[in-house]
């Protein structure tokens, strides 16, 4: 007959079983656990972080596809993961519940300081890429109206037709906010499309301006122009590794490795990665490897 202790251990083993068979069980104790949220851009960037660490001979354990910012943050705060790619704008607004700020250093500094003080988390070097909302036009329209910036667009709007995703029309940080902040922006028409299809409307000539997320791969493949947010209405959504300060202490090399990678992630690079993963269905891990090889990291 097993002793009490043994039987307890047996139960614990049985309980742990489903996790092990999931292939996401704990690796070696020293592994860096890299997480990601549940959309392909975040997953791909997390794979780049993971592969870069592995190339630097740091063992990695992957916890990809965490369902939301709240889940990823909860896992990070508990120490179930050591780091994951987060967007500065998201951290500011959705995690810290602070009012939107306009400039990149302002946002980054605020978030980093608050995270360190409140959560014992920190942000490493941010990437230049900015996955924000935006408006884009075809090169032809840009030329025809000499359109480059949102200020110009605000004035020209009555001559322009908008192709939009539904929520853009109602969200305070979308069209209503733009109208208030820039003035104008009263488009001659606004038709709503499923996400992604607004680009097709633009290409077919059914619209002159389309809503966009600024790292959508279509912007690159369709040679579209994202209008410059010249008065900084939208906060910046620069991606940066958010990490446990204690993990950075245990693995001092993490910061050095990731700070070499982050500057490489520009809008066009990330659009290209999104294209590979979303359109060509390249596995994010393969796309990450490929990227690191190209940039000799």
């Amino acid at each position, binding site marked *: 007959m097993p002793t009490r202790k043994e039987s307890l251990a047996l139960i614990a083993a049985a*309980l742990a079983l*489903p*996790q092990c*068979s*999931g*292939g*996401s069980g704990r690796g070696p104790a020293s592994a860096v656990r890299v997480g990601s949220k*549940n*959309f*392909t851009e975040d*997953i791909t960037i997390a794979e780049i972080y993971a592969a870069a660490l592995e190339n630097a001979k740091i063992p990695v354990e992957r*916890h*990809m*596809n*965490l*369902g*939301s910012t*709240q*889940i990823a*943050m*909860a*896992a990070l*705060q*508990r120490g*179930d*993961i050591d780091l994951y790619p987060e967007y500065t704008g998201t951290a500011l607004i959705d995690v810290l519940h602070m009012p939107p700020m306009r400039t990149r250093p302002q946002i980054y500094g605020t978030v980093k300081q608050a995270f360190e003080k409140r959560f014992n988390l920190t942000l490493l070097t941010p990437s230049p890429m900015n996955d924000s909302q935006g408006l884009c036009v075809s090169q032809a329209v840009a030329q025809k109206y000499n359109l480059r910036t949102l200020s110009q667009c605000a004035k020209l709007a009555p001559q322009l037709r908008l192709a939009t995703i539904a929520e853009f029309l109602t969200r305070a940080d979308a069209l209503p906010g733009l109208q208030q902040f820039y003035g104008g922006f009263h488009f001659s028409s606004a038709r709503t499309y499923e996400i*992604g299809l607004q680009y097709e409307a633009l290409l077919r000539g059914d619209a002159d301006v389309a809503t966009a997320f600024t790292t959508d791969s279509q912007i690159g493949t369709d040679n579209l122009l994202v209008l410059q947010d010249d008065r900084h209405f939208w906060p910046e959504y620069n991606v940066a590794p958010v990490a446990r300060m204690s993990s950075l202490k245990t693995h001092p090399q993490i910061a050095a490795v990731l700070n070499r990678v982050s500057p490489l992630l520009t809008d066009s690079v990330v659009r290209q990665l999104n294209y590979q*993963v*979303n359109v060509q*269905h390249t596995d994010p891990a393969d796309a990450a490897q490929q990227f690191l090889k190209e940039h000799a990291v």
Partner: protein
Amino acid sequence: MKHLPQIGGLTLQHLALVGAGLGIALVIAVPLGVFTARTPRYGAPVFGLAGVVYAIPSLALLAVAVKYLGLGFWPVVLVLAAYAQFILIRNIAAAIAGVPAAQIDAAKGLGLSAWQRFARVEIPLAAPALLGALRLTTVALIAIATLGGYVGAGGLGSEIFFGLQRQYVEETLAGSIPAAVLAILADAFFRTLERTALKRTGEA
């Protein structure tokens, strides 16, 4: 298709999530359902509470679960058990309350103890309705357990959500077809049990 070999394992994980979620859900819902059947004035608050829990968006509930239980198997099981309450408590209460009063009175009068009345009279007579509740809950949980893909608990959700993200139809189907098949099989399984139980208890 390169995902095919994983599907078996993911399906098993999925079943483990649903099984554990349902098991824990029953441990909570059976006493609550029986309690509200016996004291109907507590029905409204208990059902109300279960409804409030049910109305919490799944990702928000999952985030809270991760906060306390970490990533992996258990937060998903907790969320499944929590959502199941809404269907289970109400239906268990209705099933128990639906047992003809005359048979309960007769059981009491013949000298069956409270536990014997419950086990030998109420449960068998409520069985078809109880199995119906179990069927609805299982099918719902099979769908909800796809959340497992969001906290590293595995299951078929990993395939579905990743595929959806990339508009990658094959990957999405590789996850959703087994999930649908599981749901259909579970439904058929419980329907068969229900029919058998109904044949036995058919109204006197």
